[in-house]
């Protein structure tokens, strides 16, 4: 039997390799330095690794799109776009966690490597050219998150969150795997492009499809069942509505840094995977699945926004708000068009800016053992810390979708893509629910500006880095809202594989 190594295209996976090295280096560094050594070096090591990785990704922008490692991963602009986005989210999470690690007395030696590894999982989900890689990416991400969610061993709630996430997450992984098995059973291949070709999709980057069935001879019933299961599996990670029940509890119990990471990074990764799978493998079946996803999107938007109205805890409120935003992002996939895909990428960036900003404020206001997460804790913030209050107000307006912020522009692109695809009712449902969402976002603003502070709270340590994140995010939210052209151009270039 002959054995031939596949072409080892290291450069194509270089950003991931750097992350692997970063994770291992952090592990070894902690081992060498011992527990009591300062935490800062490990954080900076992680940020440095992520920066190098991001730099490589930016440097690859003009490389030709290609499949690497026996058609397992695709190295194209879509991958690079999400890689850079994920790395930014990871760096911000490190900065958030840096404050929290000090407060909660965490062991940094496991925290940073797990964060780096979960970032690899996210990159894999975006880069996957094969369902096997999608699955490994999801699992790598999930297993790291199960631990990170329960990382605070000082209190009980995080452990409850972690076990909930673990149980439901493993269940969802089983669905995903079952879906992959059925897709393989009906098409004879797990490669996304080969599945697409078997279904009669026009070319693109297709590798060697040995074993795949001929175009047109696909077992449709089984395939549709497989697609349905894939929606369940990936929808769980994206917290789409029938599969969202874990999200608020987990978001509330996890360390705030991880909540921010999950609500932005994991969500974006899940949507990157959904986009890849549905628009590379199943574009020809769009009439079948887009109705299903449209219904899911509507339910997600309405449920997320409605339940968020009743939340008293800001992390829970942001949790439900992130469910609603998952609905908006799903609308972009329902459109199943190039414009829709580009709007998803744009919205992901905008959402990252506004949500990370909001979480930065939550982190700044927190203290050891006392996270100050009730919405009433924000009463009178404008009098105590006017800059923070102004930033928070910006993020709330952006999340509600008020112009001239990025929230407005993002929703505009997403909904117009849906209208172009003939889903006027979906766009209207999205609009109506986002109008309703203004109520709970603006309630935070109301508390900050219209209500007198209940108690005099001593000012906290300044949290330089997190404040910087908040400021940059606030700037980005406005800048992207006023000048969306640049990112939209990049997003359009990144999704050229969608027809």
């Amino acid at each position, binding site marked *: 039997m002959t054995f031939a*190594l*596949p072409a080892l295209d290291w450069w194509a996976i270089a950003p991931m390799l750097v992350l*692997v090295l970063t994770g291992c280096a952090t592990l070894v560094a902690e081992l060498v330095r011992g527990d009591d050594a300062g935490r800062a070096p490990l954080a900076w090591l992680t940020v440095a690794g992520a920066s190098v990785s991001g730099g490589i990704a930016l440097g690859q922008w003009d490389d030709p799109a290609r499949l690497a490692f*026996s058609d397992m991963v695709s190295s194209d602009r879509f991958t690079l776009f999400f890689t850079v986005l994920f790395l930014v989210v990871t760096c911000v999470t490190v900065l958030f966690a840096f404050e929290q690690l000090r407060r909660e007395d965490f*062991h940094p030696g496991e925290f940073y490597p797990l964060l780096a590894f979960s970032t690899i999982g996210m990159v*894999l989900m975006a880069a996957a050219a094969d369902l096997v890689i999608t699955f490994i990416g999801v699992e790598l991400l999930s297993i790291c998150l199960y631990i990170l969610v329960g990382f605070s061993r000082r209190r009980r709630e995080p452990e409850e969150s972690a076990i909930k996430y673990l149980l439901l997450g493993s269940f969802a992984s089983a669905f995903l795997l079952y879906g992959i098995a059925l897709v393989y059973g*009906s098409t004879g291949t797990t490669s996304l492009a080969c599945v697409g070709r078997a279904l009669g999709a026009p070319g693109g980057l297709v590798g060697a499809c040995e074993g795949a069935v001929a175009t047109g001879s696909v077992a449709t*019933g089984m395939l549709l069942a497989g697609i349905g299961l894939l929606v369940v599996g990936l929808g769980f990670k994206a917290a789409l509505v029938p599969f969202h029940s874990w999200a608020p509890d987990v978001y509330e119990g996890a360390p705030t840094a991880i909540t921010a990471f999950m609500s932005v990074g994991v969500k974006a990764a899940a949507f990157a995977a959904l986009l890849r799978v549905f628009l590379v493998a199943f574009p020809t079946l769009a009439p079948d699945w887009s109705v299903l996803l449209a219904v899911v999107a509507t339910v997600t938007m309405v449920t997320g926004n409605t339940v968020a109205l009743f939340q008293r805890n800001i992390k829970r409120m942001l949790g439900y708000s992130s469910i609603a935003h998952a609905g908006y992002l799903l609308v972009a996939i329902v459109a199943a068009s190039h414009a829709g895909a580009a709007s998803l990428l744009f919205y992901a960036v905008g959402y990252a800016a506004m949500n990370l900003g909001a979480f930065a404020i939550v982190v700044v206001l927190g203290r050891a053992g006392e996270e100050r997460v009730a919405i009433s804790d924000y009463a009178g913030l404008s009098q105590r810390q006017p800059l923070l209050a102004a930033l928070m107000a910006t993020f709330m307006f952006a999340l509600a979708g008020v112009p001239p912020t990025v929230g407005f522009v993002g929703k505009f692109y997403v909904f117009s893509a849906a209208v172009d695809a003939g889903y006027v009712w979906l766009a209207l449902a999205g609009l109506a629910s986002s109008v309703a969402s203004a109520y709970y976002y603006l309630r935070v603003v109301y508390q900050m500006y219209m209500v007198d502070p209940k108690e005099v709270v001593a000012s906290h340590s300044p949290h330089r880095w997190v404040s910087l994140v908040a400021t940059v995010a606030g700037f980005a939210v406005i800048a992207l809202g006023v000048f969306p052209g640049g990112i939209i151009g990049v997003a359009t270039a990144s999704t050229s594989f969608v027809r």
Partner: protein
Amino acid sequence: MEFLIFSAVAAIAIAAGLLMVLQRNAMYSALFLVVVFFCLAVIYILLGAYFLAVVQVAVYAGAIMVLMLFVIMLLNVAWPEPDDRVLGLLRPLGATAAVTFAMLMAWALAGTPGLPSPLPGTSLPVGAAMTLGRVGEAQAGHVQEVAVTLFSKYLLPFELVSILLLAAILGASVLARKRPDHA
């Protein structure tokens, strides 16, 4: 002959699977799951995948389930009677969902045009038939075939799984660490 063995084993697997779900005693559930694993191993043998069959027994039955039994024994939980107000509603709901799902899958698979399969009187989904076809031609199930596929076509996933395992080990060490006193 093969068909008879297959039917018997499949029936046992389904029965054990049902019993596993329906048991209240976690220990019995675990044991029925082991039975299911063995039935799967037999089916792998029927498909000519000896390596997979043996690994199925060694890894799932021999290692993972033993650890599960360990956990069950160490916790030795007196399983609390579930709250009937909650379960009373959830049980029929869950059962309905399961039956619906099973019927849906049956419908999806029944509508599948199968290729002629080596088992008389049955037809296999395309993917499975394809795999079987390759069994005949290249003696799949041979360790060598598995190894070559693993280290050529699936090299990247294989290496990525090692990162996954590293992450899992890290996680285990986090969980095993002594909890600081509750503040």
